[in-house]
Each structure stands twice: as C-alpha cells, then as structure tokens.
C-alpha cells in the first residue's frame, strides 16, 4: 500500500486556504481532522494493515495530520489578522484613554523642594523655624539695630500684645525674612553645621504684580572652622547649575546685608535670553537671584558661637521670584489665587 499522502495534503492545503472566514475554516477542520474526518478515516484503516506496515503507516499519517494542523493554524492567524485590521469587533484604540486623576504640589512647594533637595545633596539639612518670631531674633541678633535705616528693607508686621508694652526682645512679629532661623539653627545644632531653612515670610508691601505681603524664602547657613568666601561661591555655582542649567554663569557683586560681611548680591545669566538681553532681565543679561555673604561675627556671637573659632557663610533667596522666572509667570498674585487651571499646569 502506498504511504504517499502528498495528494491529500495538497488537496487539504488548497481547501483550507480557500476558506474566507472562521466558519469555513472550522468546517475545514472538521472535514479533515474531525472525529469522522478524512484523517481519522485513514487512521481507522490501520488495523486492516499487515502488522509490519502499521507502524510506518501510522507515522506517515501523523506527519499528514501535523501538516494539516499547521496549515489550519497559519490560515487561522491570517484570518484573525485581517479581521483585526478590518476593525470589526475588539477595542477602538482611538477612543480616549481613561487617565487617572493626578494630584499636584503647588508650584512654590515644587521649587522650594527642588532648592532644598539640591542643597541636601551638598550635605545641608532642612531646618524649620516659626513664622511668629521675636523682634530680637528677627533684628538685633542679626545685627540690625533699632531705628536704623537698614531696617527699611525689612518692613515688618507686628503682633498686638495685651496689656503693657513688652520689651523689644519680647515683642512678637511675623518674620520678615527666614534669617532669624539662622540664630535658632545655630543654637540647636552646634557647628560644624549646614542647614537650609524654607518658609513663609511677611512684609507689609502693598500687593501688585510683583509684590505680596506674604512670600517664601529659602535661607542657608554653613558654619565650620575654616569656611571661606570661595566655598560660598563654589556652593552657589554648583546650586545654580543644577537649578538653572549647566551653562549658567554667576556674577557676584559687592552688596550690603547687616548679617553678613563681606556681602554679595548674586546674579545668574538670564536663562530666557542666554545673557543676550531681554525684557525680563531688563536688557542686562543678568537676573538678580539671591543675596549672600560670610556670617557677621556679631551674628555668630548672638547665636552663642565664638567668632574666633568659627566661620560661616549664609545665603537667602526668594522662591516666588525663582518660580516666576522658571515658569514664565508674570503676576505673583497667581500663586495665591489657586486657580485650579493654574495649579494643574505644574
């Protein structure tokens, strides 16, 4: 008996490939591989064969069966592919996705955290102070005497006290800068130390597009035996490059703060015009970004540190200003209106 099943295989292949849909393919499967199908019929002929031929014949039938299965499988894949491309049932991937609702940190918190995290990588820890401060910590301890014009830069909200007027040291106010936390930090963790202090500060400025009676600062102070002005420059340039980009340049200008000496005002190259001059940097190519200097010996003294043994540097920056520059926001009041469409942008 012939073991050549090639004609059957060929006929099956043609038949299967002729099928146009899944129903026809199922019928073809039944026709060839069903319980009463052609292959089953051939298998049923095995017992009639002589003993010595049975094994070889069975093996050849198995090959035939596999070949047909393979063709069926291929055709099935081809059919389902064409069904998918025709787009009949199944998902319409062009329908909008169901986006999970995202929360947001306030843009000021984001910028404040970014600043603190950068200094954190340099070894600074985050220290927090109260918003209601004593007049002593806000002024005298920072070498800002009473009735001195250097106080003009720090107009301050005072808090009513009941009964008799307290002494200056005891008068309470809303801190007009984060610098009083320098005093607290130095008293809390003895040098060597390095901390950044983020937080809200208050000044009685009439509100307009660039002024707010409440705003945020990040203050930094680092004290060790041998801290240098060049260390301050090194830390701030490293900060500025992380915050504003690798190409950022810094400009240190002599300035005056009662609590630092020498003092400097720091400008960065305007990142909006790359220092070419634009309306934001008032055509100067520079943006004033922070104030800094070596901690004044009187400040060290009022914090209980011996200025002969310790040296430090300090710096402070406005979070709103940096956020406004970074995000291109032109009105400071937007931060405190909390329009949901504003908050969702950051």
């Amino acid at each position, binding site marked *: 008996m012939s073991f050549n099943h090639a004609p059957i295989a060929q006929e099956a292949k043609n038949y299967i490939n002729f099928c146009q849909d899944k129903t026809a393919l199922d019928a073809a499967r039944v026709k060839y591989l069903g319980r009463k199908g052609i292959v089953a019929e051939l298998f049923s002929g095995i017992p009639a064969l002589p003993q010595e031929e049975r094994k070889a014949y069975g093996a050849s039938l198995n090959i035939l069966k596999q070949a047909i299965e393979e063709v069926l499988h291929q055709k099935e894949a081809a059919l389902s592919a064409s069904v998918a491309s025709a787009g009949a049932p199944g998902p319409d991937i062009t329908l909008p996705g*169901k986006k999970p*609702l*995202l*929360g*947001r*940190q*306030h843009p000021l*918190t984001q910028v404040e955290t970014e600043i603190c995290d950068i200094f954190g990588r340099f*070894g*600074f*820890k*985050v220290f927090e102070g*109260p*918003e*209601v401060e004593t007049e002593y910590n806000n002024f005298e301890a920072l070498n800002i005497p009473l*009735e*001195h*014009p*250097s106080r*003009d*830069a720090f107009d301050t909200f*005072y*808090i*009513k006290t009941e009964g008799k007027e307290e002494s200056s040291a005891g008068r309470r106010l*809303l801190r007009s800068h984060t610098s009083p936390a320098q005093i607290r930090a130095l008293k809390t*963790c003895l040098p*060597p130390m390095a901390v950044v202090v983020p937080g*809200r500060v*208050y000044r*009685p400025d*009439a509100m307009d597009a660039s002024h707010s*009676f*409440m705003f945020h600062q990040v203050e930094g102070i*680092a004290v*060790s035996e041998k801290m*240098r*002005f*060049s*260390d*301050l*420059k*090194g*830390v701030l340039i*490293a900060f500025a490059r992380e915050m504003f980009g690798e190409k950022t340049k810094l*400009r240190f*200008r*002599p300035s*005056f703060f009662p609590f630092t*000496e*020498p003092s*400097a005002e720091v400008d960065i190259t305007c990142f909006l015009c790359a220092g070419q001059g634009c309306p934001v940097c008032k055509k100067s190519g520079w943006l004033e970004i922070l104030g800094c200097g*070596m901690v004044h*010996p009187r400040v060290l003294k009022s914090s209980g540190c011996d200025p002969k043994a310790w040296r430090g540097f300090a710096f402070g920056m406005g979070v709103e200003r940096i956020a406004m520059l970074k995000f291109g926001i032109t009105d400071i009041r937007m*931060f*405190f*209106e*909390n*329009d*949901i469409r504003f*908050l969702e942008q950051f």
Partner: protein
Amino acid sequence: MRISYSWIKEFVDVKLSPEKLSDRLTMAGLSVASLDEVDGDWVYDIEVTSNRPDWLSVRGIVREVAAITGAKFKKARPVLRATLAPGKKSSQPFSVRVSDTKGCPLYYGNLIVGVKVTTSPAWLIKRLKAVGLRSVNNVVDITNLCLMEYGQPLHAFDFDKLEGGAIVVRRACDGERLILIDGVEKKLSAGLLVIADTKKPVAIAGIMGGQDSEVSSKTANVMLESACFDPVAIRRGARLLGVASDSSYRFERSIDLSGVKAGLLAATKMICDMCGGTLAAAKQAGTPAQSKKQKIIFDLKEAADVLSIRITPREAKSTFEKLGFGVKQKKPDVFEVTAPSFRKDIKVAQDITEEIARAYGYDKIPLTTPEIKSFSMKVPKVQTIERMIRRLLVSMGLKEVITYSLTSEENYAKSGLPLPQAISALVNPLSQDYSLLRTTLLPALLECASFNISRNNPDFEIFEIAHVFGKGEETISVGILLSGDKRAAWLKDSMPYTLYDLKGVLESLFNEFSIKGYVFTPLEKQSSLTGFTPSQGSALNFCLLVNGSEAGSLGVIPEAVKRSWGIKAKDDIFVAEFSLSAFACAADLKKVFRPLASTPSITRDISVLAGNATPYAAIKELIEKRAAGYLKSVALAECYQGKEVPEGSRGLTISLIYGSEAKTLTDAQINLVHSNVLDGLVKELSLTLR
C-alpha cells in the same frame, strides 16, 4: 542716587565709556539700576546700600570712581569759600541757639543779605534736571546742587520771616502746627525736632522746611542752614510725619560731620556770586568735633584665607590708601587701619576684608568646594510627616494650594465660625481683610472654592498644609476640600464627591502611618480645636478623635455658608481639617514586612436590612467579635437606600473574607462561624437577613 557722567568727569579724568563705567560701578557695589541718555549726557541711577551714605553725593561717588578705575583727580577744584564782607556787618539781630544738642550737635547759620531771587541759569537747571530735581529758584537750586555734590543737606530761610531774627533748634510742643513747603499742614507732636524762631516752628529739622519761611522772589535776605542732626531723631520724625525728603534720607543714614562746613561754604559762595548777596553774619552752635577714630587691627593672612586669594601687604596697603584709610603696618601681615570720617560702616576687621575683596574683584575670587561634615540634627517628626502627607495627598489626586496666613473677622463670620478668643491681631495691618493671624485653614479653603466655582470650575479636590496660630503657639494644620465631581475622561464615569470620599482620604492617611486608634463621630460638644458647638450649624459637623482626643473635624458645608461665600454650586462641598502634630504623635513610621498569606481564603456575602439607627460600625464590630480568629477582613459591598427597602432603613451587603494565617479552614468550620455571625446580627442587632 542719580548722577550724570559729565558731573563725574568734572572731577576725575575717566577714560571709560559710560557703559563700561556702569559695569565697573556695579561690580564695585554701586549697583547701577539704569543708565539713560538725557540731553546729550548719561545719567546713572545708582542703588546705594544703607551702609554707604558717603555714596549719596557726587564727591563721594567720584572718590570711589577714582579708587576703582585709578583715574586721576583733575586739578583739585578749589573748595569754595565765602568770607564775611568787611564793614558790611549786619545791624539786624541774628542769633542761633541749639537747645537740644543731642538732636543737633552742630549748626551753622549764615546770613546773606541783598540777594536777588530769580530763575536759575540754564546750566544749573539742566544739571539738576539730569539728577531728577526740579528747579525752584536760584537760591533753592544752589542748596540742592550743593546737597547733591557734597551730600550735605542745606536749607535756605527767608530771614525776614524769622521772628526776632532767631534760630532755635528745639523739640516741638504738643499742639504746634506747621504748613510744609509742599503745602500740607502737619500737626507736630511733642518731641519732634524742629527749627523755630522766637515764636513758632519754621521747619522740621532735617526733614522739610515750612511754607511761610521759604525763599521766594520777594526774599531779599537769606539765612542759610547747614547742620548735623541725630539720625534716629530724623528717622523717627520722618516716619511719624510720613514725610521723606532728600535731606531726611541722608540724615537718617548719618552725614559726615566734616562735610557740614564744606557744604555751607560752597553754597554761601555760590549765593554771593550768582545771586548778588553779601555774607553779613556767620553763626555757629556746637563744634565739629569728630568722635575718636576707631583703630581696627587687620590680619591680612586671615582675610586672604577667607577669600582664598593671594595678596601682598604692599597691595593691601595701596588699596587702603586709595580708599583714604589711615594705615600703620604693625607686622608684615598685620595692619592698624583707621577709616576716614565718611566711612562709618567700617567697624570690624571683616568690613576691611570686604574692602580688600572689592578692590581685588569679587569675580576673581576662586571657586572652592567646602567640606561639609556630617553633623547630627534631629529632624522633628512633624517635619518628616508633613512632607509624607503632602506626597500622599498628591498621590490621591489632590492639588496643593497656598493661601494667605492673614485673615479677617469677616472671613470667620462668612464661614460660620466663631472668632476664637485666642486669635492674634496685627498692630499694623495693610487692610482689615488681612489683619488677623488665622487659627484655621477653613475660610481660606472656602475662598479658594468660591474663586474656582465662580470661574466655572466646580470640580476640584484641594488641600493645604500650613501654620496656624493660637495665643503664643504655632502649629501645623492640614486642610482638605472636595468639590463637585470626581472627574473622569469619559464624562458619564464622573461621580459626585461624597463625605465618604473625604473620610476615605483620611483613612488612607491613617493606614499609611499605622494609626489604629482613630474614630469618626458626630460632633457632640464644643470642639476644642475650632471652638465650635454643634448647634451653630457648623460646616464641621463631625469630629475626628485620635487615641481619644480631638485631632480634627470634617463635614459638609451648610447652604448658608455657601451662600455667604457666593458659592452657587448645587453639589455639596466637603471639608476636613486636622492637626499635624496630633497626627504625628500617633503615627508609626516603622514599616515591618508581614509574610504574605499562603492559606486560601473564602468569601461569604451577607445581605441585611438595617435601620438607620444601627450604625455600620456596630454591625462590623459584631461580625469581628463573632468571627474572631477566622476572619481576614470585612468589606462593604453595597449600601442601598431607595425603593427596594422600607423607608428609614438601608440594605447592606457585606463581604466577609474568611481565612487563617496558620491553617487552611474547611467549609464545615466556616459554615459554623458564619452561621454564628448571622445569628448575632439577627438576635443582637435585630437585623433582617435578606
């Protein structure tokens, strides 16, 4: 301080272009805010820091320009001086008396007679205009010109208006009044330093002159004042009156005592030369005695180390000399430095270090990396938890808001909150809207809600973490507000927020920090946090207890409160506020791995009909009690109220998940426990099984 390029060039031979000079000034600490071309000249607007009053004059700035550019002074311009005209001694009575020598340590009065007051020559008008001063008349313009050049404020009086020909520097008496040259009448309070004649005040010392005695076209005889007034007295006076002038600005910052006479002589000479006057009498009260000059020991090595620069003693010495400092070399590296009288800012060695740094150039100081040693600082738990809560709330889809810490009585009233007795008020608020230190975040959250809803955005979920203020204590509060729908991309999927969404946010926080002892309960007595009593129709009608004490409150905003905030949205608004410190006390930040259950669990549902009077908590408690040891968790599948159930009751479907960590439970065991649970629900709580 405004100054023109041509005025500077009059003194020093600057070779730099106006722009280049502007950069040099800025880098030397004379920050140039603007440089503008005005009538063919260049005008610098320089921001002078409060420690450098010596830069509030042309001569002061020129001194600095010479020091930083090395430009030579032009042939020294003679210091102008006028001399008493011989034989022209005035017969009129003229006297100067200072009754408060602390307030006025030095006073010069020059009587110039026969003055013709007219308009100023064009060059003078132009020069003043360039620096932002308006021309008045030749005499006044000369005083202003000398003020700008020498930094010494001057004032010219119409001598014939001075009663008794007298100048008396004294403190004002209560009730005295004076009309100032700007036409505004001021009531003078006792203690204010004034210039008076024998009868009345004629000027407020160092701040502004009086209208009546000002120099006008009718003036023939001028009394020219050049004086030194106490900075604190002037500062207080200017603040008290709300009047500031170029004079008060300079006196507040303190003037150079040695310049008082220079300004006087220059102006006298100019008035004599340009206005046809004659100096008839010169009076003086007080002495121009300088306080003893302070000697500062300056260690160059220390300064070079701080700045990380190399500088020779010779270079340092040359810097000091350029700046006009007296200097004695004590040791090769140690100097004894004496600052000139106009440098009152130089007090300690660090001030001199800054001068060295300025001369060297801040930009040339190298960059180094400090060694920041690790140090111990205990971060308060509240600080850690604040950051964690903020991140968790954001991960739940909430947006953080930042609102003003200052509030008003009206905001409390609008929010239906009583004004706490412990609230702190500002002495000097900007307005009544921001006059109190808030004790709660609720009004500000409502204001945010009102703001957004009125802009057609009724759906949002927001929170704030901020300080709140009690009497003498400052704590951190967390406020949450949910409004409108939980938004979904496919709009039909949107669901309105419910109180349970808000409660869920809080429960998630509790779970995250492993806080177990929390209870939500209706507010029954006055809240110790908000001071609120339940009868007042509060927004916060539920109370949150943590380990038995009140930690916060939550609830639905009543319609009346919504109305008072102008909120027109129909949907309910939910708010919660809790104390971060109460939360931090109970929080457990330790995370310990629990082995994952390997035994199977079996779920059985219970459907019961429960009266509204039976709280879910009671049902859950009973289930947990009766199935103790067999129960993994209890979950609410549904709470149904509507047509299918009788009024006043709810259909609850509760899923019980049975299982044991230790062993696999059999069906028979669970059946036994489950029927015990069902039995309890019927017998103990009288529920109907459905």
